[in-house]
């Protein structure tokens, strides 16, 4: 019998694990995928080895890489890019940690209050979440990003279209800025030296981000650093080490237990006082196929926006309003590429360290990719092939020609122009919660973990506001690239790329269209909480979701502790311990 069992060691689960381990609770953290305990020996900086969604070490699949990835049915042109493994999708995230827009919370009364998804607001105020933002920002830590060449190009473009610079964490107007990111900023020789096997690029002569350009391949730089001093603050480098060492840095703390290769297949419940109440979980061990069951006072789901509804439905938990799996948001990404005559440094430095935001519309950020992923991104389209067919779409605008995937000579010429002479812009749409975009169970056969999820996105029938927002930001992206000096601008018109995922098990004001109450506890199953992006009420207005999900998970940990363990809240009353704390480092094996 545990105090708390947490399902999933991705962006959110380890936050609850760390916070409650620090309070001395007996916490079990289960992760379906592998644990990469020694990245320097297990990982490479090579994109197929790392990122191949079918066989890479960063994929959504089992620990054994000879076995296929786990299947999800996607009955449309789309791509789900979530990761299994300790750290979850933060293993390949870019560390960007903007706060949610204030306008997506109850009680917001700014002049732009009607510009957001007002039908699906958070069930509490922005001001209530601010102390939790601050707590997470101090813990990771989140800092203002350093600038490399590609950031300077992005800023030049933003200046050129007349955007002001934002100098606060809270966004209040159309503006651009360096990212606030969860990356340790360069120190010592980091960022000042190009090389390999140079001792000056090893910890501690180099600290923080070395500008290696491999954020997408997982971060273990600088070489020789203890895991909790790796530059990028994916949870495998930050919250997980804290959870596993809570006894050394927290008074009365107790080490959480982490079990990887443990796929939860069922949440158990019983009736208590007329209420359905969670009592524990069963998981399957990937290596052996054995099943284990443990009970707990509280169960926390954090398996991600696709897996949470699947597990809920496979556990036959109640779903009286039908909103389990509904309201899935994905920022309806798009992609705009600018070609330049001069160096843009696209493949160097943190993958995305500059952004612009348009409250009520969304935002955009620069993204550097490796060659294969670059060409993947340039061929991923819902608008057919440029110059050949539009697949019923092919929007026109301040980009060149109709939107669509590049092919043949055009695609090759774009790359041979130089991967460091292009700049990619990710268009991030403030998209609406819609019942039609959802996870259900597939009619295709079950896998070893039960019926598989089917993820349905109706990209062409999304709300008018969502579609208009996307067009607005795509235009700004193209205009910014031109202002920065791009000689050619191509809009790809991506189909759904599920990378920023939110709100598939949303909390909300109304019982009619939400799964969770304002404390992130399931409305129909007591002692069952959700603490990942699925719990978010909406798509945050466009900001990258990890920070807000982690702030909410911190708040949820407090709610669990006060409601079921009789404890007091701590955020705002205590000082957070930073995840780089030397007491944690001392418990960890340095990388080689």
């Amino acid at each position, binding site marked *: 019998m545990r105090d708390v069992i947490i399902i999933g060691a991705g962006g959110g689960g380890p936050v609850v694990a760390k916070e409650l381990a620090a309070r001395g609770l007996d916490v079990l953290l289960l992760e379906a995928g592998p644990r990469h305990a020694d990245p320097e020996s297990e990982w490479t900086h090579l994109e197929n080895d790392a990122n191949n969604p079918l066989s890479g070490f960063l994929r959504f699949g089992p620990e054994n890489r000879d076995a296929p990835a786990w299947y999800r*049915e996607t009955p449309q*042109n789309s791509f789900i890019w979530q990761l299994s493994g300790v750290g979850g999708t933060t293993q390949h995230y870019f560390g960007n940690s903007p706060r949610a827009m204030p306008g997506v919370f109850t009680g917001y009364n700014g002049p732009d209050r009607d510009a957001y998804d007002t039908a699906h607001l958070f069930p509490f105020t922005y001001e209530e979440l601010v102390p939790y933002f601050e707590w997470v920002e101090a813990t990771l830590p989140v800092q203002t990003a350093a600038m490399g060449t590609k950031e300077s190009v992005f800023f030049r473009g933003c200046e050129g279209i007349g955007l002001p610079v934002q100098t606060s964490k809270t966004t209040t107007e159309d503006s651009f800025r360096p990212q606030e990111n969860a990356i340790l900023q360069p120190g010592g020789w980091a960022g000042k030296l190009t090389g390999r096997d140079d001792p000056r690029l090893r910890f501690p002569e180099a600290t923080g981000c070395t500008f290696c350009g491999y954020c997408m391949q997982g971060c273990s730089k600088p070489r020789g650093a203890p895991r909790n001093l790796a530059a990028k603050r994916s949870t495998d480098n930050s919250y997980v080490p804290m959870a596993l060492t809570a006894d050394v840095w927290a008074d009365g703390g107790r080490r959480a237990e982490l079990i990887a290769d443990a796929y939860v297949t069922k949440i158990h419940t019983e009736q208590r006082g007329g209420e359905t109440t969670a009592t524990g979980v069963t998981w399957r061990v990937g290596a052996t196929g054995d099943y284990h069951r443990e009970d707990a006072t509280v169960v926390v789901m954090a398996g991600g926006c696709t897996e949470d509804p699947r597990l809920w439905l496979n556990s036959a938990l109640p779903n009286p309003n039908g909103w389990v799996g509904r309201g899935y948001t994905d920022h309806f990404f798009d992609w705009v590429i600018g070609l330049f005559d001069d160096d843009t440094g696209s493949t160097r430095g943190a993958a995305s360290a500059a952004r612009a935001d348009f409250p009520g519309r969304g935002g955009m950020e620069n993204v550097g990719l490796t060659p294969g992923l670059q060409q993947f991104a340039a061929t991923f389209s819902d608008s057919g092939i440029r110059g050949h067919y539009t697949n019923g779409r092919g929007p026109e605008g301040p980009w060149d020609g109709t939107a669509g995937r590049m092919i043949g000579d055009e695609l090759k010429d774009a790359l041979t122009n130089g991967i460091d002479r292009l700049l990619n812009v990710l268009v991030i749409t403030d998209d609406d919660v819609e019942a039609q975009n959802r996870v259900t169970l597939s009619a295709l*056969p079950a896998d070893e973990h039960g019926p598989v999820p089917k993820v349905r996105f109706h990209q062409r029938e999304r709300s008018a506001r969502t579609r208009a927002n996307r067009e607005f930001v795509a235009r700004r992206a193209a205009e910014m690239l031109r202002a920065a000096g791009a000689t050619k601008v191509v809009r790809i018109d991506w189909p759904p790329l599920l990378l920023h995922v939110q709100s598939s098990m949303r909390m909300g004001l109304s019982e009619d269209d939400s799964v969770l109450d304002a404390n992130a506890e399931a409305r129909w199953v007591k002692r069952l909480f959700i603490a990942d992006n699925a719990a978010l009420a909406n798509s945050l207005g466009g900001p990258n979701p990890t920070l807000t999900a982690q702030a909410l998970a911190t708040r949820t940990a407090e709610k669990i502790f006060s409601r079921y363990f009789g404890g007091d809240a701590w955020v705002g009353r205590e000082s957070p311990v930073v995840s780089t704390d030397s007491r944690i480092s001392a418990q960890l094996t340095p990388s080689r």
Partner: protein
Amino acid sequence: MADRTLARRTFLARIGVLGAATAFGSAIPAALPRTAAAAGSDALLDPLVGLLRPVLAELARDTLSGLVVMTCPGPDRFSHAQGTPRSEPGAIDAGADDFIINALDNFLPFPDQIATPLATALTTALDDTGIPLPPSLHSLLLGQVNTVDRALMVILRNDQTVPLSLVVGLLLNLLATQVNPLSITGSLLSPFARLSIDEKCRAFELLEGPNADLLAVLDSNLPEPLTSSLSGLLQFLAGALLEFSAFGAHNEFAVFDPDTKELTARPVGWELAGYQPDGVVDGWDDFIGYYEDRTEVGA
């Protein structure tokens, strides 16, 4: 019966199987004893299956080579055939054909419940569009065609796992002959690989758009409730084929030694892109500073 055999022969020609089998025509028996009529593996069919399997593997490879050069044309014959030869290395030099075949056959978790009906459709579909067959495809007797067909059925339906690279290849060839019936014969093994790049794009338009003809061929073999998923899965497949081709043509797959985790040569994609000229790094000298020298911001 003769009409059905003729229509089936035309269909086999369109998906490239007839042309591939013609290469070893003299080895194909014109008739099998009645005991060999069942679709299952049979001692009398086994030698032919043994002959046909590598030929179909080559057909699939040719077809998928014709696919990958769409995303990175080079000096190879497939790029020539699509009308976009380039002097620099391309997808074939990068091993993207191996990459896509490996991905389809070994890793893509494409459910057999979809793949098997697709394969079944390809083993039973007829063509009555009246596409005329050139003389080169008339060299097999109808009895021999029937024998080839039964060997194909063994390969597609009796394997433990459907060879998805072959199913996809045959599907692309079917689309190719819809776009350009003349692609049914020519210098390469695969009708799809014979198309110009404009025609290949048209084939993809048919694959990801509403294509009643294609769905009619494939739909009838799918059990409910999967029929409604089929057009969506074809849209997914169309996108994935191009995206994975582009990824495979530019990453390090072909020159990666999994034992040492090192590269045995510089990847083609890196050279084309000018990516990290001196190979993998531990860091770059690219830290300019902070925008307006601001290293922190307020709330």
